[in-house]
């Protein structure tokens, strides 16, 4: 072979030069192709991004959406992203201000009685086409939400209105709704039963107004595109490119023009990838981003402005209380309760910034009589006690008449945090009680289907608030509640839920929540895991962004740009 090397080398060199020429042509070709494709993509109109995070000159704030809103029809929307967008562009009777207090919005004053309420609407509240917002628009919206033909998933929140439930079941026509427009600016509501927290309900988006003529003109596609929505909030949606971006501009017809400080809020990116949003934040392209545990140290080194808030949700293990299930046994649940420590889960295992160890069904931020509910009614959650736990386990074995427990099925979602949690519990119960858990990992809908049909022993579940009252958590384990997926049944708990629903006196209601909390812990209905916190970074020039557990989050209505 050695004699052939010279000729091989000359061939190689010549071929190498040839390749270089080809490479040159290839790069030129690719460049040309890119110009062509860029032109083609401009035809599709799906452009997003480009501006800096804040632009004081034009008053533009650039941020992101975690997901594309499925649609923006306030009477049908269910998800949090839609709620956040709607909170900027639609206004109900009342709203939450930057300190999370209920304040007047379309209603300028209101009165709540035992059996009904009256709202007096302001004269200068206008729709984005210049027409006034009237009491009729609210009545129409509520009828729409309750109409069985529309199948709104949040219709239940309108059941507070007289005949609401019967209308939604199709037993009564929508015209029998217990809400009337006395005149254009006076709205009267009758309650189904005495209710102390109706003011908190009307701040929810299902209660937002819809104008009949416009709604019907969209022939079923209301809320599908920016021009198929009528706005009455501080902002209007200027453009909505599905999957790519959503851009809001200050509403010139809004009655409280001083409230919106920035001219444009540009949701220029739609992605749920936490690293991508953090990278965009680093690149000064968006004004806030959520931090993951692994980015926290870096964020502190960079001296970024870090904030945190509780997003309102609690997460826990829910037992299957159906008859015949091992987990229906009180002693087995007690044993598992006493063998776990949520502080270990939160601080040593998941280690996510801002999370709190779970102790109760009621999260810490809920208001009680004068202060926080959890300060007035401490959870007194039992500390880990392995001796007691094993005693309960023996009792359970005796009661069930078995020597050894078969593996219990732990149903979980397929996200990273569920995986970590499931493995942690698997290990804890094996070590502390000699109990085996079989992890059944399912994607979103499958997990829900199995929860509904009761195909589990334990499930990693959670709950987020719909309105700002402890009842949004408190009635979860009532025997009639459809979201009571473990089918826990306890007449005593039901009794206290009825008190909380119907009682007018705040102290008596909060006492009821105290009792509900006690029962849930004493009977080990659930094993609290954690309360979710969110840690995030904001642009130094952006001020006044509001995060909240109940209501539109995040809220940029009051945000402004400094400098």
């Amino acid at each position, binding site marked *: 072979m050695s004699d052939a090397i010279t000729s091989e080398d000359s*061939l*190689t060199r*010549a*071929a190498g030069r*040839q*390749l270089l020429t080809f490479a040159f042509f290839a790069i030129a*070709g*690719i460049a040309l*192709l*890119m110009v062509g*494709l*860029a032109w*083609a*993509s401009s035809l*599709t109109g*799906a*452009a*997003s*991004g*480009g501006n800096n995070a804040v632009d004081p000159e034009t008053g533009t704030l650039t941020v*992101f959406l975690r997901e594309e809103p*499925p*649609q923006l*029809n306030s009477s*049908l929307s269910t998800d949090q992203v839609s709620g956040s967008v709607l909170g900027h562009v639609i206004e109900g009777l009342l709203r939450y201000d930057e300190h999370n207090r209920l304040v007047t919005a379309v209603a300028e004053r209101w009165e709540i009685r035992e059996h009904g309420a009256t709202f007096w609407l302001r004269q200068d509240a206008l729709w984005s086409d210049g027409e006034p917002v009237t009491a009729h628009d609210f009545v129409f919206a509520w009828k729409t939400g309750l109409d*069985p*033909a*529309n*199948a709104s*998933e*949040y219709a*239940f929140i309108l059941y507070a209105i007289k005949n609401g439930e019967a209308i939604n*079941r*199709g037993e009564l026509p929508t015209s029998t709704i217990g809400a009337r427009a006395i005149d254009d600016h006076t709205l009267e509501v009758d309650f189904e039963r005495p209710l102390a927290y109706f003011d908190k309900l009307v701040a929810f988006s299902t209660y937002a107004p819809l104008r009949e003529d416009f709604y019907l003109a969209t022939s*079923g596609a*209301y809320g*599908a595109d920016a021009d198929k929505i009528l706005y009455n909030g501080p902002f209007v949606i200027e453009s909505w*490119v*599905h*999957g*790519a971006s959503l851009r809001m501009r200050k509403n010139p017809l809004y009655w409280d023009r001083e409230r919106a400080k920035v001219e444009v809020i540009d949701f220029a990116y739609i*992605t749920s*990838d936490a*690293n*991508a949003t953090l*990278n*965009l934040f*680093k*690149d000064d*392209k968006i004004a806030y981003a959520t931090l993951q545990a692994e980015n926290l140290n870096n964020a502190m080194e960079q001296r970024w402005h870090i904030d945190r808030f509780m997003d309102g949700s609690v997460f826990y293990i829910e037992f299957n209380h159906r008859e015949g299930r091992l987990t229906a046994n009180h002693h087995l649940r007690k044993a598992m309760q006493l063998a776990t420590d949520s502080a270990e889960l939160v601080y040593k295992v998941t280690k996510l910034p801002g999370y709190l160890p779970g102790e109760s069904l009621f999260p810490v931020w809920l208001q009680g009589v004068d202060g926080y509910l959890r300060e007035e009614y401490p959870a007194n959650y039992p500390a880990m006690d392995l001796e007691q736990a094993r005693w309960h386990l023996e009792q359970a074995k005796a009661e069930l008449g078995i020597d050894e427990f078969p593996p219990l099925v732990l149903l979980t979602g397929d996200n990273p945090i569920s995986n970590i949690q499931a493995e942690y519990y698997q290990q804890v119960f094996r070590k502390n009680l000699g109990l085996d858990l079989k992890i059944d990992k399912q*994607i*979103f*809908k*499958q997990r*829900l*289907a199995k929860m*509904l*049909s009761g195909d589990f022993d334990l499930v990693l579940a959670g709950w987020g608030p719909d309105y700002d009252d402890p009842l949004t958590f408190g009635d979860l384990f009532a025997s009639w509640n*459809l*979201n009571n997926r473990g089918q826990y049944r306890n007449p005593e708990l039901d009794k206290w839920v009825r008190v909380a629903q119907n009682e007018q006196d705040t102290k008596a209601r909060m006492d009821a929540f105290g009792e509900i909390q006690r029962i849930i812990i004493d009977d080990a209905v659930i094993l609290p895991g954690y309360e979710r916190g969110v840690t995030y970074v904001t642009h130094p020039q952006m001020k006044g962004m509001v995060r909240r557990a109940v209501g539109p989050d995040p809220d940029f209505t009051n945000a402004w740009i400094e400098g």
Partner: protein
Amino acid sequence: MWRYTLKRLIQGIITIWFIATATFFAMHNVPGDPLINDRSVTEDIRANLEAKYGLNRPTHEQYLIYMGNILRGDFGISFTQKNRMVNDIIREHFPVSAILGILAVVFAGLGGVLWGALTALYRNRLPDVIIMFLVILGISVPSFVVAAIAQLTLVNLNDLFGFSVLPVAGWGTLWHMLVPSMVLGLGTMAYLTRLMRSSMLEIVNSDFIRTAKAKGLPPTRIFTTHQLRNAILPVITVLGPSIAAITTGGFVVELVFAIPGLGRYFVQAVQQLDYTVIMGTTVFYGAFLVFMVIVVDLLYGWIDPRVRLE
């Protein structure tokens, strides 16, 4: 030639029908359905929803209705994006995925051929060792890692220069396409490089190259006309499926770079059990894949006349 094309087309249609049927029944047999949500609804609301979407009929009846609609080119309305037609979702978002995909395939194809040829020329020498090391990396590192690293590099690059050299994420201009399409094409490029290298090496030792050398052809001619042209054939074969794989597999890249492509609808639909979107995207992508394979087979006959189309 025409007979062959027709035969392939009919086979393709049967394949697509099979894909649609299998997906339909598989989808209806997993636990859960698109109507289940975080908040449980009453029996009445559930019944209303089922009636609205026709889910209250027996599965085989739904199948016949659905197939009838597909034949008319109507994929129905999405369950999660409640007011959007699946046809609109495909029409609005597939072009984005296609643009990204085309560019990625061109990167992968040209890059694979060039690097493959280069490594074959310099086999067992430094360029070969370096490139083959990178190729192994390219094949084994998953795209979400590559995408994240690429994006972080962009952030640091912009930070270094003090202005926006290349956008970190987003879509719309020429500059938005460059890095995402390279990331998307990287795995395929690595694979094609390896394929091209081995195919080149096989040909170098073949008789017709020896003949070409013996009759005194200039080296560039031997390389271009005899080696490259013959070695490229296997690359063309896998290019068709690669185009489909790249165009449909952009989910991660689309998510990381916030690109409004079809890939994320494809994946999210499965997680949400959004029946109509699952069917629409699967049938559409299936048809696309079948079409690409046929095109490549036809191209094959054109590049290598020895291949008979029959």
